[in-house]
């Protein structure tokens, strides 16, 4: 079978999984829905590997294959086709997405076991994976937009999975609204490109972009910036990031899957996929690089201050995606995508470990209430350590290689990019600090009652409650189930985490500078037309970067150890001395408040005014009332003429004929 056949089958498996679970859920006993879903995604992963092998069997120059299943409408002026593109980039993404998804499905089988919405959960989860794979395999803008929107919808469904929890539905709505802003950006950006090139097909667009646009031409830059809006919304970059922390209301495996490893990296994929456009519009590239750098710094500072375990990891995700966006925006495609892959490993691991810890805390997520879990949860602790080391970029963990490569290529651009370089390393220090703050606060210090209880062999079970507001809940459908699960007690969770821990440790080894460049070699055919792909920065810079990265990581860990383990009061003292700064970080740089004032409140005020003045009088009174009245009167008139008398009908017919004939006679004279 050819690579494109595998490409279609990759999509088919999760789609079938969704349909089967959604239609047959009534007859699926016990945990079978979870296993069906896991199997579907595992098959997808197997098929992705098969596609990889099929692709590697071809000459590097012929590794971009596109396949059309059918044309929806090709004669109404645009070519709307169900068409996939199988090339190294899409296969790489499919491998990461389906691989990590398989593990997260496996984890969820145990984690969600007692939830009353178990089967609905897996139907959603498979639907999400299908949408994400559709997004990365799309070969034209139309299908990309479809996948993009599907992913947003799946994210909404999963964030609001516990739909009786007020905070969860609010978070789902917020995520959906922000994502729709991004969708609009994507659609408008597509329009700018379609307007000039007259096609939606990726390969045709990429081939024609240099002829259709002058470098940095206004329309192209506008189109690319609008595409960036789409990328920023999906990837939670400033200023469209506010939904991601709230999205942590969803079940923890969902956070691991969607809001850490797959959907939020769609923006990175988009920029890498659209590289011929962005390279032709360097102004848009600069926007992406600056926003990425800003995000990684701001998110890092907030991560230092928030106390909700999952939100710390969420801000860390934002920050790491900032690195990737910066990378792909300066032409470091392989490095950015490499970081995407390693990040998927260690961030999924961290989320899974966090889920295990939250299970031990019976749903509680606040770091303030955690402590001393080291002895009670040795496995989870080790996983946190692995994830933390990889995230902080300590050699030889995977994050070490990928992050430094992004920064190296940023510096290689020269000029003001050095500012980004410095910002990136500052961010690296912040990363180590907030990561190890989290780990030390949760696992070191005096054991909390829940930890002691776990050491005695029982998981804490309080009344079910909402971790964000403390509201009382029950455990029926629409709320989390009654049982809590930790990795120490559930084999499937442990397997998934162990695999990811191994990958977090070893994943970086496949791309070591000067040693093996597996990823950049594999991806090269997809970036054949790129002028930025093969850069060779000086070895001095390379070595300085690697050493600096490792040192900063270790330094951050040491500071964190001193502040939160050796002298536990230090943090309090610093906080008091720098109260305004701390306040700024805790309040998340006041982004939510700013949006509240600028968009929500002013919008509401304008709306109220418009309702009072314009809507009541003009819209309701004249337009709606008038047109409805008109239609109603028309309807009455039509029915009044329809009195059932044949003579009236015949008369009208004659009148009609007379009118038509009269018109023609007037024409003739």
């Amino acid at each position, binding site marked *: 079978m050819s690579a494109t056949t595998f490409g279609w089958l990759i999509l088919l498996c999760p789609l079938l999984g969704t349909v089967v679970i959604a239609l047959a859920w009534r007859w699926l006993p016990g945990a079978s829905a979870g296993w069906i879903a896991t199997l579907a995604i595992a098959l997808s992963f197997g098929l992705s590997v098969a596609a990889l092998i099929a692709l590697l069997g071809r000459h590097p120059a012929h590794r971009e294959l596109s396949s059309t299943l059918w044309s*929806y409408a090709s004669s109404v002026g645009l070519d709307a086709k169900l068409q996939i593109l199988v090339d190294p980039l899409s296969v790489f993404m499919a491998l990461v997405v389906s691989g990590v998804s398989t593990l997260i499905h496996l984890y969820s089988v145990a984690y969600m076991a007692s939830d009353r919405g178990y089967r609905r959960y897996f139907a959603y989860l498979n639907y999400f994976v299908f949408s994400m794979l559709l997004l990365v395999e799309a070969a034209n803008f139309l299908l990309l937009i479809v996948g993009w929107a599907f992913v947003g919808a799946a994210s909404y469904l999963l964030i609001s999975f516990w739909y009786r929890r007020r905070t969860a539905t609010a978070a789902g709505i917020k995520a959906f609204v922000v994502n729709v802003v991004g969708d609009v950006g994507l659609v408008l950006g597509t329009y700018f490109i379609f307007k000039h090139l007259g096609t939606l097909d990726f390969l045709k667009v990429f081939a024609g972009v240099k002829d259709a646009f002058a470098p940095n031409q206004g329309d192209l830059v506008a189109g690319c910036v609008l595409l960036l809006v789409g990328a920023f919304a999906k990837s939670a970059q400033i200023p469209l990031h506010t939904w991601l922390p709230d999205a942590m209301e969803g079940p923890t495996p969902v956070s691991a899957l969607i809001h850490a490893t797959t959907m939020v990296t769609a923006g990175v994929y988009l920029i890498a996929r659209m590289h011929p456009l962005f390279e032709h519009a360097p102004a848009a590239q600069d926007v992406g690089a600056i926003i990425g750098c800003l995000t990684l710094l701001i998110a890092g500072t907030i991560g230092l201050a928030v106390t909700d375990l999952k939100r710390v990891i969420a801000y860390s995700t934002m920050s790491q995606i900032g690195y990737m966006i910066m990378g792909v925006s300066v032409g470091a495609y392989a490095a950015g995508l490499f970081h995407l892959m390693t990040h998927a490993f260690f961030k999924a691991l961290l989320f899974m470990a966090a889920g295990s810890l939250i299970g031990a805390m019976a749903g509680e997520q606040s770091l303030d209430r955690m402590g001393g879990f080291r002895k009670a949860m040795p496995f989870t602790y080790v996983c946190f350590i692995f994830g933390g080391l990889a995230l902080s970029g300590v050699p030889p963990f995977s994050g070490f290689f990928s992050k430094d490569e992004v920064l190296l290529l940023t510096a290689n651009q020269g000029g003001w990019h050095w500012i980004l370089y410095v910002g990136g390393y500052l961010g690296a220090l912040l990363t180590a600090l907030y990561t190890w703050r989290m780990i030390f606060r949760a696992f070191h210090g005096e054991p909390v009652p829940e930890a002691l209880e776990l050491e005695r062999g029982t998981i804490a079970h309080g009344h079910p409650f909402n971790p964000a507001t403390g509201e009382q809940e029950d455990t029926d459908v629409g709320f989390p189930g009654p049982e809590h699960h930790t990795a120490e007690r559930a084999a499937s969770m442990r397997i998934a985490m162990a695999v990811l821990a191994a990958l977090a440790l070893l994943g970086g080894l496949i791309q070591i500078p000067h040693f093996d460049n597996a990823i950049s070699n594999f991806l090269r055919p997809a970036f054949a037309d790129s002028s930025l792909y093969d850069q060779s920065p000086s070895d001095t810079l390379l070595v300085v970067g690697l050493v600096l990265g490792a040192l900063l990581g270790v330094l951050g860990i040491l500071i964190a150890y001193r502040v939160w383990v050796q002298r536990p009061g230090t943090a309090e003292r610093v906080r008091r001395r720098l109260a305004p700064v701390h306040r700024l970080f805790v309040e998340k740089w006041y982004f939510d408040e700013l949006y509240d004032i600028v968009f929500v409140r002013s919008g509401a005020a304008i709306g109220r005014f418009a309702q009072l003045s314009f809507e009541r009088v003009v819209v309701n009174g004249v337009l709606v009332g008038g047109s409805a009245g008109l*239609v*109603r009167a*028309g309807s009455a008139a*039509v029915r009044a003429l329809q009195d059932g008398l044949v003579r009236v*009908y015949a008369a009208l*017919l004659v009148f009609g004929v007379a009118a038509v004939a009269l018109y*023609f*006679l007037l024409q*003739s004279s």
Partner: protein
Amino acid sequence: MNALLAVAQIKGPHLDWAGLSPLIALLGGAVTVLLLGLLRNRLVRRICVPLLTMLVLAAAAGLSIWRWHHAATLVSGALRVDDLSLLLGLVAIAAAAACVLLSLRAAAPAVAGEGEYHALLLSTVSGMVVLLAAQNFVTLFLGFELLSIPLYVLCGSELRRRGSLESGLKYLIVGSVGSATLLYGLALIYGATGSTDFSGVAAALSSGSLASDPLLLTGVALTAAGLCFKCSVAPFHQWTPDVYQGAPTPITAFQAVATKAAAFGIFLRLFDGALINAQPSWGPILAALAAITIIVGNVGALGQSSLKRMLAYSSVAQAGYMLGGVLVSTRLGLQATVFYLAIYLFMNMAAFAVIVARERETGEGDDIAGMVGLGSSRPLLAWPMTLAMLSLAGIPATAGFIGKVYLIDALVDGGYAWLAVVLVVGSMISLAYYLRVVAAMWMRPSAGVAGARPIMAGGSAEAPTATRLSGLEVSVVAALFGAATLVFGIVPSPLLSLARDAGKALTGIF
């Protein structure tokens, strides 16, 4: 003897039996069915007659498919069998087949006699086939009447129900006025051009200043009015709601689809073929009629509680949409009209099949109240109805959406953008009554089937009240056409290519 033989050797036209074969099958079938219906055996009448009718229709359909891409001019230029006439003929045949299935347990054939009922149905279809292939005024009128007269009878075939008789009588009277108008118009055109052939008319129009001749234009006006009557274009639509409501529902379903296909087919042939050179004269007035039709149809459908009446007004509105495809006189418009006629079959048949089923199951007749709670009680009926309503309204992922997109494209392309706007506004209004049906099915709980009294099919009050389920065949028709609505909304390309082939049949347009 020799002299006698010499006299007997009348110089007849050459007959291309292959080209005529679908028509021969239909006419021969009609006669055979009529004769078979004379047998008094109940089994023969109840089973064999519909079976034979289906076979005849299948044969006609098979022969039509066999003649695909074999365009031929037959009987000295009286008929032309090409992809356009074959495709629309197939639509009519499919509608007739669905009608036979829907009539299997209906009251009308039992009352009127199975043989007569089915023979009349086949005659109507053969009239449509003649009309669709007509190449001169004589065959045009012959086909027109062969279509109309059996249909008048079929509308009144439920002899013991006043509504049915009223429907048939009204159709006859108003229809006769329409036919007379058409005939008068054809005569005037003949008078102006001196030819009864379409080609002769076209030739006369292309040379000289005949295009503004009062005699010709009056003829065109009367002809247009006569055809508009058959297509139920306002202000000639008045008969439509009454006839649709009163006629037996299977017949309503048949005539809603098939009559439209045949009438629009000849509209295309005559106006976009023979009269194409006078298009500047008749284009604007037809556009005005289309706009009026769209508004009147959609507005009139709003307050209806009878589903058949609602669909009658809806068919008026849809006729307005399709008239748009005719009047632009472009190949794109032609294709759009043909495509729309084809999908019109799917969506209307699905809707009428559900109405037939509900008429038999509840005592509500065709009232919208019969649809309440259908989503939970009979999802297999509710889904086709939902799809049909969404498709008629033009919601994406249904065939109706593609059809409307094509028509709008054709209108804008042909310089009638304002009519496209009217079309869109009309579709907006139409949502109000289409979605009302959807809402009734899905959003209101079933009022309790216990209260409904099951009565005889067709809502005949005189018939003995007996519990009858709607029957498998009705559900099958609904499901089949509902599925087609969805499938061709997602994969329209096969149907589009058929429409494109049919669009190549007329040569005078671009």
